[in-house]
Structure formats: structure tokens, C-alpha cells
């Protein structure tokens, strides 16, 4: 009987904890009442929100941009690229891109929906189903995996984040020791090759790892005209001439995450087409200080993306 009462009390307390809510102000300045311990979350962006939430061990039941069978609706599957092909991570979608299916959202019974700061247009419709919290995801305010850190603070997962970060920092120390001595403390420029070459900004595990390894950002923004216009996303386009003029000590290059071929040969070929002669003009290329990364693995603001980056640097150091 005693055991039964204890179990009953424990269940009641647990239920109470799950049912508890608290009021927070989101990054769009809205006051939202969210569950203290959300059990079923829907993320409105895969790379920027769903992946950090999954890494924090939260139950993400639906992601915008994924199909019903758990596959990605776009050419890149960030969940699979970053965390591997885990059947447990075949998360359902919430309708086609551009046409969120509110009935599907409701059927997933979320207790919290997390969107980006720019998704205010969707808030009104989704708020009828579950509280919607808008998280800032743009460079300028966010950098490295700060999105994940802030989500951990919001959703009571600080301990999980701290544990993962500790493991990551140990790995950073390990890789740092293997880097060529002559590149330590030098400047880096990270670029991604879409239809043009773009300078990668602050929000990604890749950038966090590169900085934690001791490299300092090359000041490209004062040397090009591109940054004069508002550009707060993942990357800022550079003209071919601007790219050839830049002079970082280390060049980090990745292919578009929509490209199925992330090999260094493919990236070099694309750069040859976009900025012919780049490997003669860019000093880091001439001196063979180029590190190639798989953007689908490293572009997300997660610790796992940072770890993928460390692996690539370790491989480069070993060559």
C-alpha cells in the first residue's frame, strides 16, 4: 500500500511538473506562457532550431520542411548529415514548405512550437494550437552555438548543454595540440560556394570550432562592399574580384549544402568556374592552407557540427 501511495505521489508530482508553465518574453518581444518542461516540440526550422533541440535531448515531434516519412523535403537532410542515419530521428513533417498544414500540426499534439524571429507571420495561426516561442537566429546577435545555449536555458536543459560542451572543449584541446604550429593564432576566412562565393558569418558550429581552435576572424567586411547592405544570414555574397583580393592566413571552404558532392575536388572545380585563377591570387591557396568542410555537417549551430569541424581540422593537420 505504501509503495502504491509513493508511486501515486511521484506520478502526481511528475504530472504537476509537466503541467507547470512559466511566462517568458521571446526574441520578438512577445510575452508567451510556455510549459516548464515541454514534452512535444515542433520546430519551424530544421538546421537552426530542430537540431539544437534534438542535441539537447528534447522530444521534437515535428519539423517544418520534412516529409511524413521523416525524410527531408529539400535536397539536404541536416538531421541525417549531422547526427547520422538514426531511425529514431525520422521526425515527421508539418506539411509542404510554404503551406504549413495546421491540421497535421494539431494532430502531433505539440505543447510548444519554436520558430525563428522572422516567422511572426505564422504565429497567429499556430498559436491556436500551442504556445509559439520565437527565437532569434540571425548573425549579429547570435554566434557559434549560442542558439542552442539559449534554448537550453529556456527549456531547463543547461546541464545537458554543459555536459556536451565539456566533452567538446576536451576535444578542442586535443585537436589544438595537433595543429601546425605556424598556423596557430592566425586569421581565417570561411567561405561557402553557392552560385557565388559567400563569406560565412557567425552562426554555425563550424565557426565556433574554428574560433575555439584559436584562429581569429579575418576582417573581410571592411575590405568588401557586400557587407554595406544588411546581411544577417548564414553567409554574405562576395564578388569574384573581392574574393580574390582577400588575404586570410587560412582559408576554410565548403560547398553549398544543397550539393550532393562535398569533395575537395568538386569544391575546387566550382571555385575555378566562379573565380578563375583564385588559387593563384589567394595566398592561403598558394601556400596550401585550405581546409575543406562538408557544409551539411558543419553549418548548423550545434555542438555536433562543431565536432565534425574539429574532425576535419584534425584530418588536415595529419596530412
Amino acid at each position, binding site marked *: 500500500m505504501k509503495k502504491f501511495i509513493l508511486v501515486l505521489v511521484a506520478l502526481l508530482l511528475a504530472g504537476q511538473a509537466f503541467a507547470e508553465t512559466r511566462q517568458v518574453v521571446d526574441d520578438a518581444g512577445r510575452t508567451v506562457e510556455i510549459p516548464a518542461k515541454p514534452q512535444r516540440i515542433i520546430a519551424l526550422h530544421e538546421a537552426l532550431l530542430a537540431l539544437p533541440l534534438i542535441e539537447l535531448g528534447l522530444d521534437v515531434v515535428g519539423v517544418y520542411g520534412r516529409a511524413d516519412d521523416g525524410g527531408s523535403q529539400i535536397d539536404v537532410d541536416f538531421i541525417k548529415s549531422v547526427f547520422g542515419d538514426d531511425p529514431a530521428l525520422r521526425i515527421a513533417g508539418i506539411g509542404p514548405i510554404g503551406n504549413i498544414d495546421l491540421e497535421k500540426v494539431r494532430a502531433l499534439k505539440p505543447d510548444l512550437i519554436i520558430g525563428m524571429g522572422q*516567422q511572426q507571420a505564422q504565429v497567429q495561426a499556430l498559436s491556436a494550437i500551442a504556445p509559439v516561442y520565437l527565437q532569434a537566429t540571425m548573425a549579429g546577435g547570435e554566434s557559434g552555438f549560442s542558439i542552442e545555449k539559449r534554448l537550453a536555458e529556456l527549456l531547463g536543459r543547461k546541464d545537458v548543454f554543459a555536459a556536451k560542451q565539456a566533452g567538446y572543449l576536451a576535444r578542442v584541446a586535443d585537436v589544438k595540440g595537433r595543429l601546425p604550429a605556424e598556423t596557430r593564432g592566425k586569421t581565417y576566412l570561411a567561405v561557402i560556394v553557392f552560385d557565388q562565393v559567400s563569406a560565412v558569418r557567425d552562426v554555425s558550429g563550424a565557426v565556433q570550432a574554428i574560433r575555439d581552435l584559436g584562429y581569429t576572424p579575418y576582417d573581410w567586411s571592411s575590405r568588401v562592399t557586400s557587407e554595406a547592405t544588411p546581411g544577417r544570414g548564414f553567409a554574405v555574397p562576395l564578388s569574384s574580384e573581392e574574393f580574390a583580393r582577400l588575404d586570410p592566413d587560412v582559408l576554410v571552404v565548403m560547398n553549398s549544402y544543397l550539393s550532393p558532392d562535398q569533395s575537395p575536388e568538386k569544391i575546387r572545380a566550382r571555385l575555378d568556374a566562379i573565380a578563375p585563377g583564385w588559387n593563384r591570387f589567394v595566398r592561403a591557396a598558394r601556400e596550401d592552407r585550405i581546409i575543406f568542410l562538408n557544409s551539411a555537417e558543419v553549418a548548423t549551430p550545434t555542438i555536433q557540427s562543431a565536432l565534425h569541424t574539429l574532425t576535419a581540422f584534425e584530418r588536415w593537420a595529419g596530412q
Partner: protein
Amino acid sequence: MTVTRALDGRLIVRFAGGLTIRLADVVALSGLSLAILLAAAASLTVGSTPVGMADAIAVLWHGPDASDLSFAVWDVRLPRILMGILVGASVALTGAMLQSLAQNPLADPGLLGLSQGSMTALLVIFVFLPGLPQGWLPLAALAGGLAVGVLLVILVGRANAGGMAILLMGIAVETSLSSVTSILLLYTPPEVSLALADWMAGSMFRASWQSLATFTPWFALGVPAILFLGRALRSYDLGDQMAMSLGENLSFSKPVILVTAVLLTSAAVSAVGPLAFLGVMAPHLANFISPASGRARLLLSAAVGALLVVCADMLTRGLAGELPLPTGLAIVMLGVPMFITTLRLRSARRMRGQ
């Protein structure tokens, strides 16, 4: 309402308030209204939550409650259907009116730059003032559309310019604004530009009771105004000179019609985004169903526009499955084959007549 025989022998229906429509047009209008009702009823049963027709009727009869069925019917499908009818009718009506005003079958709110004006204003807000409350967006869309309308009136030079001048000026303004939009999109982060691209293709996702409440006053004011102004549509169809000789005050009516069209178009764009080509297509399809003139043509165009949007929304919501198909594209997919077929049939008919 009385049915009489006109001088040419055709039966005409006279409604209260002086509205006179051929009996054949009344029949066509009734048929289209019935088709809209049937499409709306079918649309209530289409979506990811299984809802049969009997369930839908029961849910509508009992009113909204907390069930999944009620959510699907009352909160998702019904507002989208009603918004589709209102927006479709508005855009088609405006298109028909502008075609008469410009005396050109190509004129529509999109081609004249009115939709683009609203869209550019919204894009400027999305890019430079992302924190602006949502309530300001309809006003921004109206301001953008109105600015283009005023610019057109100034450029066209009030009454003296012909229909072709209106069309050419509109195309010039539309093209300029399109390039501004493209530049803005270039400097928008990919995640934002993706969302904007969806909206720019026309999407019924944001249709809700609240957005309906915002749009309905514009519809309730704009549509009767256009129908009232459209009483002289037959004169406009005869050309400016003839219209003036028949007593039409074009220096007053043209700007007023243009501004009314701008207000209705801008309100529609702020609600669901621009519905490309609907303003051109619907009047032509209406003309094929029943070659009416005057206000009957406006009403038939409005009915065809409403029907096309309701069917397109049904396609995007259910039949297209996980295909990312915005409503604007679905309208084009549904409407363009019909449009081409009607054009071919009409030219074949004309050939046979010769």
C-alpha cells in the same frame, strides 16, 4: 425582379436598383454560384484530418468545439474557403474592370504594378523593419499599392491618355518594382527569402477568422463601389472618345476606378499575397462561359475568380499532398490550361463564323 424582352429579342432580367442582366447571364451566374457552393462543400472534406461530408455538416451545425474535427472545419478549412471566395472575386473583378478601363484584354492588377506595389512595400518592411507588428502589414500593402496607383494616375495624365498608355506605364512601373524586389531578396537571409518566396507566390496559409475580419470591410466597400462605377462599363468598352460623347466624365471616373481597384487589390495582396494571372484569366474564362458586357461581365468574372481560388486551395491543401504548391501556382496550374483551351475554342468558333 422582372423578366422582359429586349429590342433584339433577348430575354433580360431587371433587378431593383436599375441593374439589368441578360437571362442567359443570370443562368450562367447561377450555375457558377452553384459550382462555388459545391466546390466549397467538397473543400470542407479535403485535408489531412479525415472529415466526411456528413461529419462536416454536423460540425457546422453544432458550432465550434474543442475536437480535432471542429478545428479542421471551423478553424482551418472554412476561413480558407471564405477567404478564397472573397479574394478570388476581388482580384477577378478588379481585373475585369481594369481591362475595360485600359481597353486591353491583358490589363490586370499584376500587370499594372498594383500587386507589385503592395508586395514591395511589404518586402521593405520584412527586410528593414522585421519587428513591426503584424497589424501594420495590411496598411503597408495598401500604402504601396496606393502609391503605385497615384503614380499611374500622374504618369498617365488623367483622362487624356488612352488604354494602351495606362498599360505601358503600368508595365514600366511593375518592371521597376520587380527589380527593387529582386534586389531586396538578394540581401535577405535564405531562411527569410524562402518564406517570402512562398508568400510572394500567393498562399492561403494565413487565412483565419481574424484575417477575414480585416479583409471583409475592404471587400464590402470595394466590390459595391466597383459595381457602381461599372454601370458605365459598356461606354468604356466603346473607347474613350465614344464614352465621353455618351456623357461619361472620364477625368473623374478613371482615377476613382483606379484608386478603388488599388484599394481592393492591395487588401487582397496583404491577405494572401499576389495571385498572379487571376485578374487576366478570370474575365476571359467568364467571357467564354457567357459573353456578357457591363456589370454582368464583372459579376461573372468575380464568380469565376472565386471558383478558381477555392479549387486551387483545395488542390494545395489535400490533393497535392506534400508537394510544396502555393495557392498562386495552383491557380495558374488549374486556370492556364482552361484559359488556353477557351482561347483556342473561341478562335475556332470565329473561324467557323467567317
